[in-house]
């Protein structure tokens, strides 16, 4: 069996909703039926075969090739299997993903891993705004799983995040971890302004000290053995975070404007 491959024929004029094309939804479906699956493209519905050259037969392993950034909802609500995307992803990549693995060999736009609950999302390029965040109207963002971003992330990464692990090797924009409810966000690069704005609980693990706002309180330097446990849990993830060893940190607690049980740990 070979991976079920969707090769984009032409750059689409409209955005395409890719949520029907996940390993669990395509399991046991014949090639003819897969070709006939209707995908929302702007205000029209198009058959999958009109948009993609489809080959292969292993629905547990899906390759999407030539993606140009207009494919939204890739891996949305997927539960098992693996999707590999060559090119850029549109918005909502891994939206409410529950399991399996989604690898984006490019960039992802806004709301990647929004409401994610399980599995692994690896963005080998950069992510847009609202990574792992809640969509408008939702009260909770990412609720589980692991996101690894090799590049940068935009503003509001981890906004209202409830649980899970968000690891960003590059820089992040403003309001990282804003309104965070719990979980862990790690950033190796620069962090914009207002990190941890209105966070209630959770941990921001930062390599570089950002400019912090007034309601994040300095709790001093500490050696925290629990970080060994956390680093151990990073082992096997495709990220430089697995090489971290420092357990000496400066601990900031906050946001005291919103309960103040969160923490920002700056590695020393």
């Amino acid at each position, binding site marked *: 069996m070979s991976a079920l491959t969707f090769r984009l024929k032409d750059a689409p004029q409209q955005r395409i909703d890719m949520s029907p094309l996940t390993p669990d939804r395509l399991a046991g479906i014949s090639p003819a039926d897969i070709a006939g699956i209707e995908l929302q493209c702007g205000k029209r519905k198009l058959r999958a075969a009109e948009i993609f050259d489809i080959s292969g037969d292993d629905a547990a392993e899906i390759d999407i090739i030539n993606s140009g950034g207009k494919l939204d909802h890739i891996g949305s609500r997927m539960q098992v299997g693996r999707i590999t995307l060559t090119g850029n992803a549109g918005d909502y990549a891994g939206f409410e993903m529950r399991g399996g693995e989604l690898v984006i060999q490019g960039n992802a736009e806004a709301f990647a891993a929004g409401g994610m609950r399980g599995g692994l999302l690896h963005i080998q390029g950069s992510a847009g705004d609202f990574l792992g965040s809640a969509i408008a109207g939702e009260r909770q963002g990412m609720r589980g799983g692991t996101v690894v971003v090799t590049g940068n992330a935009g503003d509001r990464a981890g906004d209202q995040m409830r*649980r899970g692990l968000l690891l960003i090797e590059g820089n992040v924009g403003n309001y990282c971890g804003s309104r965070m409810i719990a979980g*862990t966000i790690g950033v190796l690069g620069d962090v914009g302004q207002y990190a941890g704005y209105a966070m209630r609980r959770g*941990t921001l693990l930062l390599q570089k000290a950002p400019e912090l706002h007034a309601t994040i309180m300095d709790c001093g330097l500490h*050696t*925290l053995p*629990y970080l*060994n*446990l*956390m680093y151990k849990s990073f082992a096997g993830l495709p990220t430089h975070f697995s090489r971290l060893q420092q357990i000496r940190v400066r601990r900031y607690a906050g946001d005291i404007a919103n309960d103040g049980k969160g*923490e920002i740990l700056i590695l020393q």
Partner: protein
Amino acid sequence: MILNGVTIDDTFAEAFNMRGTRVIITAQNLKWAYHAANAMTGFATSVIACGVEAAIERELTPVETPDQRPGVSILMFAMGSAVLMKQLETRLGQCVLTCPTAAAFSGIDGDPETVTRIGLGKNLRFFGDGYQISKHLGGKRYWRVPVMDGEFLTEETTGMVRAIGGGNFLVLAESQPQALAACEAAIEAMRKLPNIIMPFPGGVVRSGSKVGSKYKSMIASTNDAFCPTLKGLVKTQLSPEIESVMEIVIDGLTADDISKAMRIGITAACELGAANGIRRISAGNYGGKLGPHLFHLHKIMRGTA
């Protein structure tokens, strides 16, 4: 059966079903891990009055522990799950939470059908008075409780399994020092084995008991048949040359663990041989009517148990 001049009685040790758990204690160094572990397993020789039987199973290197610090593993056994859970929580709270730099982790994971999760730091977290922090890492929940030396780190639960307590053998010698030397040799060999503990002081017990007493309030009393000073008074089990009897009691996670420990312990004791005053190896039982697990000495020594 005779081994190195030592007669091994054709009898059996009688053991009981228990509930067992393992906890991993780590600290800044082994010294403080031992302080915590010794406190936690103190006054835990017999369920008769201690609630649990507990002891240190072995030392752990930093590579073997969850937080990569030196540590020790503790095994704890009780007659029922409720007692075990209560004792675990109490002892953890008073002996590990209080001990500088110490942390506690689950020592038994695995199949939910055979391993029941019981609270470890689950309730102790409330000591944090709202400042405690939960972390979910690698599928497990941990608690970080702020304390005066930094943080008390503990896993939320540990695993409880069906276990066996009361495996034993008796060493009968011509003198007290000789009986003790044989027991020390046995304990040294047995302590290298996993999944078992010998909960009595130094692993050896000198006050073996029988069921019942002439006093109504006592459920157990001295095992007069094995008391050398009563040889002329009671229906003794001792021949004239026996002057001292000591017992090694073993609690283990499985019957195989106990059998193996008994074989290794008896072999080590017998290595001193009759030349050093070791005359007999026997075992404590209640006629086979009380405990469901019978460890026949001859079968164990032949490796057929």
